[in-house]
């Protein structure tokens, strides 16, 4: 039951989405293999099983969204995938190599932006580059390229305090992409901006995805967002957090929210989330 093979978990209509067989890390950009997390209790029992046997993989260049009810451990799973939290069981493989800590091969974007407030927009974007072996000229060119990608060239010398939420998140995305990671990990990145900005950022992210070919693992609680963005939606269940089903979103992009097929997928994912333990 453990493994979910990314390539054939797709037939969402009649398969449970948890096909047997080992994951294929060779073909996948990132694979979660039996990941579990238990938070120890405070002496008198009460240990909490936050994640149990989570396995799925994201193929090279694929866009996968992770949705689930609150408390299903989405953020814990995200942190484990990013190497920021240690799993109790299982492992995360990035291009077949086990992830043991944060790596610049994964770009990480958080909901609350977490820009460095003492650095300008350009300096934020260049932060990771300072630790790379690029020459100063190459770094500057890369920063310019990233600022152009997210449309913030004219704000390069501004401090984050003077930016709107949407602009801050664009800086954060540019900062994570600057070091050219092979995988982009995003934890509810558009959860803190207004609806209009969110849709704009979603379109922009799809453009960036299309132009860079990055693999994306995107955590969200917004089902419509997941169906808008993802090739596949991993639906999680709570208590303990686990994969309920993986839904292939077989709709051409750009996707229109008014489409019948779109609404059908949204309804289906909502149903899976609401199905209880």
């Amino acid at each position: 039951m453990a493994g979910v093979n990314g390539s054939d978990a797709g037939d969402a209509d009649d398969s449970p989405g948890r096909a047997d067989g080992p994951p294929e890390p060779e073909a996948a950009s990132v694979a979660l293999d039996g990941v579990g997390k238990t938070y120890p209790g405070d002496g008198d029992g009460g240990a909490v099983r936050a994640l149990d046997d989570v396995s799925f993989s994201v193929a090279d260049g694929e866009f996968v969204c992770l949705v689930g009810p609150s408390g299903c451990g989405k953020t814990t799973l995200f942190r484990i995938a990013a190497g920021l939290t240690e799993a109790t069981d299982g492992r995360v493989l990035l291009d077949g190599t086990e992830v043991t800590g944060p790596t610049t091969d994964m770009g990480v974007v958080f909901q609350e932006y977490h820009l460095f407030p003492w650095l300008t927009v350009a300096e934020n974007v260049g932060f990771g580059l300072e630790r790379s072996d690029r020459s100063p000229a190459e770094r500057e060119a890369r920063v310019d390229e990233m600022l152009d990608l997210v449309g913030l060239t004219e704000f390069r010398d501004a401090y984050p305090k003077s930016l709107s939420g949407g602009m801050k998140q664009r800086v954060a995305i540019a900062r994570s992409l600057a070091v050219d990671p092979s995988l982009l990990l995003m934890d509810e990145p558009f959860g803190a901006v207004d609806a209009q900005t969110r849709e704009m950022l979603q379109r922009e992210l799809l453009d960036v995805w299309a132009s860079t070919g990055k693999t994306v693992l995107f955590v969200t609680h917004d089902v419509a967002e997941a169906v808008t963005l993802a090739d596949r939606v991993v639906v999680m269940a709570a208590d303990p957090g686990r994969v309920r089903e993986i839904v292939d979103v077989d709709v051409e992009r750009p996707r229109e929210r008014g489409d019948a097929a779109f609404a059908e997928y949204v309804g289906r994912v909502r149903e899976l989330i609401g199905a209880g333990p």
Partner: protein
Amino acid sequence: MATETASPVGEGDAFASAGLGDGRRLLRGAVGVAAFLVVWHAVSLTQDPFVLPSPVAVAGAFASELASGDMTAALSQSVRHWVPGTIAGTGLGVAAGVAFGWSRLLDDLTAPLVRTLRPVPPLALIGFAIAWFGINDWGAAFIIAVGAFWINFYAAYGAVEGVSEDLLDVGRTLGVRGDLDAVRSIVLPASLPGIMTGIRTGLGRCWMLVVASEIFGVPGVGREIIRASNNLRVDRAIAYILVLSLMYLLVDVAFRAVERRALAWRA
């Protein structure tokens, strides 16, 4: 819609407060001082000069001390205590605060010592100042350094403790490795506002400590205040107290300008 909240940086909004609104504040301040001087003068007419000299007498004492060169001599002596004491105390305090705030191991090792030494007032260490340095500039500087140390230690310690874990996580995903890199590239800049507040508080406290540091006989402004008081020359004592106040004001204004510049990124 996103762009309207954004403005190019580098504008002088640090000086915006020095515009018209500030003129009114200055005027009100001047009125307050004038009123205070009038009341002071009125009350002093009913008292002996050794209880409360008039502001005119204080101004006279100030002028004559300045003219004789005694005041500038005393000030230059005190500056020789204040500068090394403040620099050493601030530097060590910030360094220790950052190190102990960042490293759990160092914090655990030193916590009992720190809690034992913290409540000791600098004045209580005069014996050590004399024994270790002698009745000289270094002894006085030591007393000042102790005072500066604790203020800066706790300010830096608290500021480092308050650095967001999330920023450190972001740093790690962008290649920050090891304590030194993390402290240099994230912890220090993130805690700079708290550290600066500590330094500023310490600068003022060190001028207060000038009096304590000269109580055991080292010459300087503090010594002059103590001597004038002992001789019931309250006008002279107040004149020298004014010197400390003026020095504090000068240093504080200068430091605030530095602070504004260094923290221009702050909301």
